[in-house]
């Protein structure tokens, strides 16, 4: 419990904490409120006397309906889902194998290779996107989901590898040795013994990778052009603005619905997510 006199607790703890929580969550509240507010209420200037922003007396699903029926939003959701799952799967596969090799096998240049992979994690997309756009075009992957499914792993794999390495290091090496004496090949010992034990780590890495994929914007913006191919982040920001007019109702509906899958996954696996965040930092 928080100690000290009541006034101290309020001043030094409750008030600051509440302030933080409110300011961190307010934009989401705003997103939700805007989604269900009818247009008539939305477009009142800020200093109009009847501006009552924090709630609405006439909630409506019009914006959501319009979003789903008049735009390609559901297509974007599907695209993003497929791309995120596929990219996550590829990255987990690579990260699992690479993490195992780097943490449990002895071979020349193991250390340097680990460092190199770590460094690639730090290379931001903004450094590579222009030449990558060219390369994607040359491979004729432009404007297809494959452009993203193959490039997202570039920032997902290093992270997955790193996370899995941390997990693997905590598993005693006697387990593989015993399995090998029991009659398993190195490969079988890895797959039947080590991987099952590392499932919590795999879960953490997968969830983080999924969220990162869903969140990605630059590559999706640059590599995809036709509206049917776009992902949710790109679609919502580009297609919902007609001319110079922002349809805020739909925009916020899109933002809200587009966030739900990630929030959903997150809510089930909060502990894992936090573990992978802090694990990646503690290195």
């Amino acid at each position: 419990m928080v100690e000290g006199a009541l006034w101290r607790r309020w001043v030094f703890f409750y008030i600051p904490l509440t302030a933080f929580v409110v300011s961190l969550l307010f934009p989401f509240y705003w997103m939700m409120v805007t989604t269900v507010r009818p247009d008539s209420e939305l477009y009142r200037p800020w200093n109009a006397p009847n501006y009552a922003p924090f709630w609405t007396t006439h909630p409506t699903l019009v914006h959501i309906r319009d979003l789903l029926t008049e735009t390609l939003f559901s297509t974007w959701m599907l695209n993003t889902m497929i791309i995120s799952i596929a990219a996550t799967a590829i990255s987990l596969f690579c990260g699992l194998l690479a993490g195992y090799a780097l943490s449990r096998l002895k071979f020349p240049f193991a250390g340097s290779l680990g460092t190199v992979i770590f460094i690639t994690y730090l290379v931001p997309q903004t450094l590579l996107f222009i030449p990558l756009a060219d390369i994607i075009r040359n491979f004729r992957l432009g404007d297809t989901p494959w452009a993203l499914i193959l490039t997202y792993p570039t920032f997902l794999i290093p992270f997955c590898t790193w996370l899995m390495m941390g997990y693997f290091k905590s598993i005693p090496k006697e387990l593989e040795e015993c399995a090998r004496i029991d009659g398993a090949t190195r490969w079988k010992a890895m797959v039947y013994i080590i991987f099952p034990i590392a499932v919590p780590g795999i879960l953490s890495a997968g969830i983080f990778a999924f969220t990162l994929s869903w969140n990605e914007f630059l590559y999706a913006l640059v590599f995809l052009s036709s509206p049917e191919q776009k992902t949710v982040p790109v679609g919502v920001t580009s297609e919902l603005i007609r001319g110079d007019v922002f349809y805020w109702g739909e925009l916020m509906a899109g933002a809200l619905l587009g966030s739900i899958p990630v929030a959903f996954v997150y809510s089930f696996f909060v502990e894992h997510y936090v573990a992978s965040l802090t694990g990646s930092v503690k290195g």
Partner: protein
Amino acid sequence: MTYTTVASPSVYAGSPKRGPITRLLEDERWLAMTLLLPTVALLGLFIAYPFIEGVRLAVTDAKVGIPGHFVGLQNFEKIWNDDIFHVAVWNTCVYTAVATVFKLVLGLWLALLLNHNFKGKAFTRAFILLPFIIPTVLSTLAWKWMFDPTFSVINWMLFRLGLIHSRINWLGDPNLALISVIIVNVWRGLPFYAISLLAGLQTISPELHEAAAIDGARAWQRFRHVTWPLLLPVTLVIVLFSVIQTFADFQLVYVLTGGGPANATQLFATYAYQLGIGTGLLSEGATISLAVFPVLLLVVIVQLLYIRRVETH
């Protein structure tokens, strides 16, 4: 019992029949290579190759659809003399520095608050991470709406509190735009700092604080002499990560202002995008992207040196 010697030398035992692949993968080195192959291939193809391509582009005068000729360092000269580039560099540095300081201070404060036990702690911790979880572009859109010159809810609140009388054009006023963008960046990154620092705080044994308190140290002194030094390693790692990300930030500014008004919020990444993709000047865009590299290299080297130092402790 005595030892009976083996007189005749001996047959080297052979394994039972196993396929060549099985035998190959029994060797530690071959197994390692096989396991690393997919990763190396993917990263090589989509990071190493583009990087080299980027360097090549930067020394040509390629545009979209027109493969260029080698022009040496001409592009670098161009951007060196480009005013907008200067503005972008300045903006990026200010953006990164200010945002990082605020994220660190506020993140630390929040972490210290969260380090107590209180009802609903788990919930609070979970909700706090939302700004970091929700796709940046989508939450940034919400902020854009909140900053809207005509309909801003923030303006409304300030108006009702009696603090302003005329509107604040958060994103349209060149003097305010960078500040607004920094606010959103801090909002977005704060949870990451808070949660990571919280994890760091939790590894500090409470006995250390108790011992310090018995020794007579007050709260601030305890923080300065016990908490902060032990938190420093984690802090450094977080800050280094965050600096790289913030320096190369794109999404936030793209959605909020596109780089304007009048380049007030132009950053490296947005300028590179504008030139390379927007106007199709591939080589010049690539040059700007590449200009980030020295900073990146510096940060990476510092981080590696630091990690090496920590590991040898």
